[in-house]
């Protein structure tokens, strides 16, 4: 029984981080219709930058966190202005390729600056004594990550529902032209979407860095987030959250169970993609996504 609860808990934590990254992905897709294959690399860059602040420059955690957020905003503005703005109106494949190119640029810059060794935050963000929850020891990082992810997801949900900027972003997502004619600066909304997305990704990166340590494979998160966003529906914020958590739990369970029952190794890497294919065959627009209906 304890085994299953452990699987569930680590699945929930992993899922909540997937949800954060998926949120970042969905925000960009929803307002700018750019499919960002570099999401995982942005997460990685954020994690590494924070690492430099904390470990190499001994900045206190709170400040390191804030500086990383500022750095993410600057990076987002640069990327949006220099790379994505010229691509407006280009076919999907060009946009996909440009973000893939961007991801390999980021990856190699990270290797050049920080090397390929695995890095750990020292001191860690959260104390490492586990807490007993109904008799099961859970490390504090897990609880904090889960809690923080949920808080952020709720905050962004409220942001999109009630604030002026959030509503403007939804309007832009609905139709660029209508938004323009209502006096919304679409350029500014695009920049804002990238900023939010990168900030959220960096937070995800810092959290996962506290759990597993930081290395170059953090970039894979960006690809594993696709099952989550597809399950939730590409353009849905709520969907991103739900999809992320479901995929995290499913991934952990299929890995744990298939390993104990059949001795299969490495299912963790591939399970989300098997789900992805199934979802695409059964319900391509996901749980909460807008169905594209075409009539001739």
């Amino acid at each position: 029984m304890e085994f299953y609860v452990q699987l569930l808990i680590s699945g929930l934590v992993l899922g909540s981080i997937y949800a954060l990254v998926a949120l970042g992905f969905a925000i960009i897709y929803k307002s700018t219709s750019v499919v960002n294959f570099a999401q995982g690399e942005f997460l990685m860059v954020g994690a590494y930058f924070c690492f430099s602040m904390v470990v190499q420059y001994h900045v206190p955690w709170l400040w390191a966190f804030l500086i990383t957020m500022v750095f993410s905003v600057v990076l987002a503005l640069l990327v949006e202005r220099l790379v994505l703005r010229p691509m407006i109106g280009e076919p999907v494949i060009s946009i996909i390729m440009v973000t893939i190119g961007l991801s390999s640029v980021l990856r190699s810059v990270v290797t050049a600056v920080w090397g390929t060794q695995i890095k750990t935050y020292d001191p860690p963000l959260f104390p490492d004594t586990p807490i007993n929850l109904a008799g099961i020891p859970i490390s504090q990082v897990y609880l904090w990550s889960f809690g923080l992810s949920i808080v952020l997801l709720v905050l962004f949900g409220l942001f999109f529902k009630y604030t002026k900027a959030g509503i403007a972003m939804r309007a832009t997502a609905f139709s660029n032209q209508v938004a323009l004619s209502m006096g919304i600066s679409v350029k500014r909304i695009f920049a804002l979407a990238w900023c939010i997305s990168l900030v959220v990704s960096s937070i995800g990166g810092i959290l996962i860095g506290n759990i597993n340590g930081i290395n170059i494979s953090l970039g894979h998160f960006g690809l594993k987030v696709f099952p989550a966003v597809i399950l939730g529906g590409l353009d849905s914020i709520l969907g991103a959250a739900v999809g992320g958590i479901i995929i995290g739990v499913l991934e952990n369970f299929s890995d744990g169970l298939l390993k104990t029952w059949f001795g299969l190794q490495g299912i963790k890497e591939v399970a989300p993609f098997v789900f992805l294919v199934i979802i695409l065959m059964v319900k391509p627009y996901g749980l909460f996504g807008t169905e594209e209906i075409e009539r001739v």
Partner: protein
Amino acid sequence: MSVNHCGDFKQTYKDDMRVLQTRFIRFWVYGFVVFLYVFPLIASTYVVSLTNMIGIAVIGALGINIVTGFTGQISLGQGAFLGVGAFSCAFFMNEWGIPFWLAMPMAGLVTAAVGMIFGIPSLRLKGLYLAIATLAAQFILEYLFLHLEGITGGSNGVMFPSPQVGEFYFDTDQSIYYVIITVAVLTTIYTTNLFRSKDGRAFVAVRDHYLSAEIMGIHLFKYRLLSFAISSFIVGIAGSLWGAYTQYITPEHFTIAESINYLAMIIIGGMGSVLGSIYGAIFMTLVPNLLSYGTSVLANVWSGAGDLIMSLKEGIFGLIVVLFLIFEPDGLAHRWKLIKAYWKLYPFSY
């Protein structure tokens, strides 16, 4: 934009439909093919082996261009399809003792079947969703390469026997060169002609406007699957040749990076262009080699440069792709056309 020579009159429809329109072009193209066949006699082994890699890349790039450039179905799984071709060819030769010349087309058929399985979602999905579906295919196939140890040898990989005719083995760079270049030339001829046929035109129609295509009586699903099948077949052949060239195959070669590499080739060369695939393949094969060469030269001057550039290599690649997409979205083939047109009309370009 097509500019014909002054006095180049066409008297029959057949004349107008020729692939190589003028005597001048015919002379140079045939000359080039002949040159390709005498080339290994005069070139060094290093240059020949580089040309082998270019030849395989040309075949693979033509394959992916059929599905992505001409039919508009984004495929991120070409690296894995290459692997399917290579591993199934090795399996047929090692386990069943089938000669390479038969095993290669069989591997092509196996790859075509796999490609069609992952092409099935294209019935309902397009653009982005299809890209993600093929991405999933890539990861699932990569997993299978590592874990179906009976066929692929797991992470150790398998030996790939050299092709042979009688007692002659194609096991040197020079000898395998003839196999690769023959297949590359045949594939180029086939692809060029494919897009002059009914099926090829249907592919282009599906890409340009699939609703109109369907209204004009093109069976969307059939042609999408067909393009996946043809493309995967060619990619499977390229995979088999890669095996024959390297003589030892491991799953490491057939990763997502390879898929991206091939996509980059057709984007840099020009999507929906046969010549573009060739330019792209040459470009993407030569650039890493030039980079390595530049690194070794720089390393003599400043010892730290080598490590730095090696780690930035992938990034330079990515940067090239990004810059091409921003400044030259139609690729090298388009630029080449513009240059030709400029000089034909020079100095009165209006």
